[in-house]
């Protein structure tokens, strides 16, 4: 592994994001976003648009701020005590960090799936029904049953669990647990789904199932996915963003990024020189 810090010092400068960070008709758009953990800055001046019903992949060496950036989009960073954010993040042209914006409502609109499957220690049914119950989305037991079933079907899990809906969600296999987490996210019908390395804890077969599911879901939802695997980014995403040490280095169509990267750092990364 090459010592990144040293290299950056003398030969590579990042002034502004290269490629095509901005698009028309964006679902999310961020401008001049800086993120700090206490004194330490984790994101420097991130400007990017995320398109509707698209999958955008975020790649980069670990520790470069992908998760941090993703967590800004549904204000999950609010739960970290010394985390501060400045700049604009707009969802459908509304600033999500404005006072009158409510994080609870925002998170219902922007769902999230995590790296390690984290089903609640409840039954499969209750896991999926969790959000609907919280937000009062179903008016009757029948409606709730339908919602649970529909979400499990969409997440491609229904067939496997339909006879054990009342068994604990923590008893499923890793891949099933991750699909359960996706099912519970889509049960509240969000507009955007953020996925932070959703397959890095899974085996290749489970990964393939989830990737297929993502492509299917992107017909209806906007999806932002952080991934460690460039193949995965190439397989599922339309656009790709490359982060480096807190800087958003390059954003472009996935094809372009992988075949013809503009920035030296991007090229270094995708050709496997580090990361």
């Amino acid at each position, binding site marked *: 592994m090459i010592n990144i810090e040293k290299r950056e010092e003398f030969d590579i400068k990042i002034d502004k994001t290269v490629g095509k960070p901005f698009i028309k008709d964006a679902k999310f758009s961020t401008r001049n976003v800086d993120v700090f953990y206490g004194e330490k800055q984790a994101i420097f001046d991130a400007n990017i648009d995320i398109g509707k019903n698209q999958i955008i992949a975020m790649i980069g060496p670990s520790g470069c701020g992908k998760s941090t950036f993703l967590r800004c989009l549904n204000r999950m960073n609010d739960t970290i005590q010394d985390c501060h954010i400045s700049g604009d993040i707009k969802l459908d042209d509304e600033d999500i960090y404005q006072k009158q914006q*409510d994080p*609870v*409502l925002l998170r*219902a609109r922007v769902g999230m799936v995590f790296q390690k499957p984290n089903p609640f220690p409840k039954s499969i049914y209750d896991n999926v029904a969790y959000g609907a119950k919280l*937000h*009062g*989305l179903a008016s009757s037991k029948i409606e709730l049953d339908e919602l649970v079933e529909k979400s499990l079907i969409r997440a491609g899990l229904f067939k496997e669990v339909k006879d054990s809906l009342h068994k604990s969600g923590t008893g499923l296999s890793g891949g099933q647990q991750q699909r359960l987490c996706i099912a519970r996210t889509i049960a509240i*019908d969000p507009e955007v789904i953020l996925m932070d390395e959703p397959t890095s804890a899974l085996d290749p077969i489970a990964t393939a199932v989830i990737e297929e599911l993502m492509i299917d879901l992107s017909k209806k939802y906007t999806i932002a996915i952080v991934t460690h695997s460039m193949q995965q980014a190439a397989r599922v995403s339309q656009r790709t963003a490359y982060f480096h040490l807190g800087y958003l280095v390059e954003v472009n169509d996935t094809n372009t990024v992988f075949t013809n990267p503009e920035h030296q750092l991007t090229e270094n990364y995708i050709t496997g020189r580090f990361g």
Partner: protein
Amino acid sequence: MISNTKKIKNKLAKRYAKEKRFQIYGLSAIAVSIAFLLSLLINISTTGFPAFQQTYINIDVNIDSKLLNLVDKYNEKALFSANYRKVVNQSLKTLFPGVKGRKQKKALRQLVSKSARYQLRDLVINNPDIINTKQSLWFLARDDVDVFMKGGIDRSLPESDRRLKNFQLVWIDKLLAENRLEKRFNINFFTQGDSREPEQAGIKGAMIGSLLTMLVTMLLSFPIGVAAAIYLEEFAPKNNRWVDIIEININNLAAVPSIVFGLLGLAVFIGVFGVPRSIPLIGGLVLTLMTLPTIIISSRASLRAVSPSIREAALGLGASRVQTTFHHVVPAAMPGILTGTIIGMAQALGETAPLLMIGMVAFIADVPQGITDPSTVLPVQIYLWSDSPERAFTERTSAAIMVLLGFLIVMNLLAVIMRRKFEKKR
């Protein structure tokens, strides 16, 4: 979808109100606990504080050898058994001439404590030349007078509801007018043993008893506990059934009610070995068994916290396991071990129930001289006094609690300081 957003929005206010309420419940739970603690401490100190003062009465005593019934004033035996009571009583009569009736006369005698005659006796034995002179002396006042002086008796109550009757109040007023009543620091409380008379009762006996008991506990439980901890942590084979049994055993012992240890002491130490009841030795033995689990568990924790590199370095230099342990690991763990020991000792110092079982509840006026003298301990003294209805005893109970809490606070502070030091070093 718009409809979902709307549904969520409609419920938001209610959900946030719930959130707020939940948070308030949490804060109130803490507030209630702290309020209880404060009210306990304030209550105890306000009742206990007056006990650190004691009322004294000034009387002109005519030490008349005739009243004393004393012929030879240099015969020590005669001096010892002379009739000092009569002298004190006569002096009171002189101070308040014209007191009539048996009841009133008795009340008059009871202005001063019974200890007055012994105080006078000691004075005379020390200096027989004061016989047949007039001396102005300060004596301990009776508890009722003392309570009155501390504002514990309400004049405005009807006479029948008061412990001091009107005629007694008249006497006290006279004494006050002549500056013959004075509150002083209650030195007796710290220099005397228990007594049936509240104004004479002190905690010295109980404090010495506690000290001796703690000494026995400490001398036994510290070496035994630390040795057991060292064995279990450093030498015992892992995954051995016997070692597992010992471990489970220790964990269970830590949660056995303390009174059960008292039963053990009663049945084994007293019943089988015939150790006498009520002595610090047996109290210490019982408390040792009770505190051992605490010491073992905390010592093991601090041994475990010693970094393995210390062990590896010493073993690498060719030291044996025993040498490594005793020369390097144990010293490194010592602050933690001491902290645990102090906390165990503090627990033992406040313990009452098992000592009741082994008879440390007897009324004992003498201050114990050694670990085989009958004695009581501070918490048991508190228990004994708490049973007495007299206000002066309630006051002393609270004062004794203050002293006990004082010791515990000091011990815990010591433990905290040790822990701080320990953490800094690591």
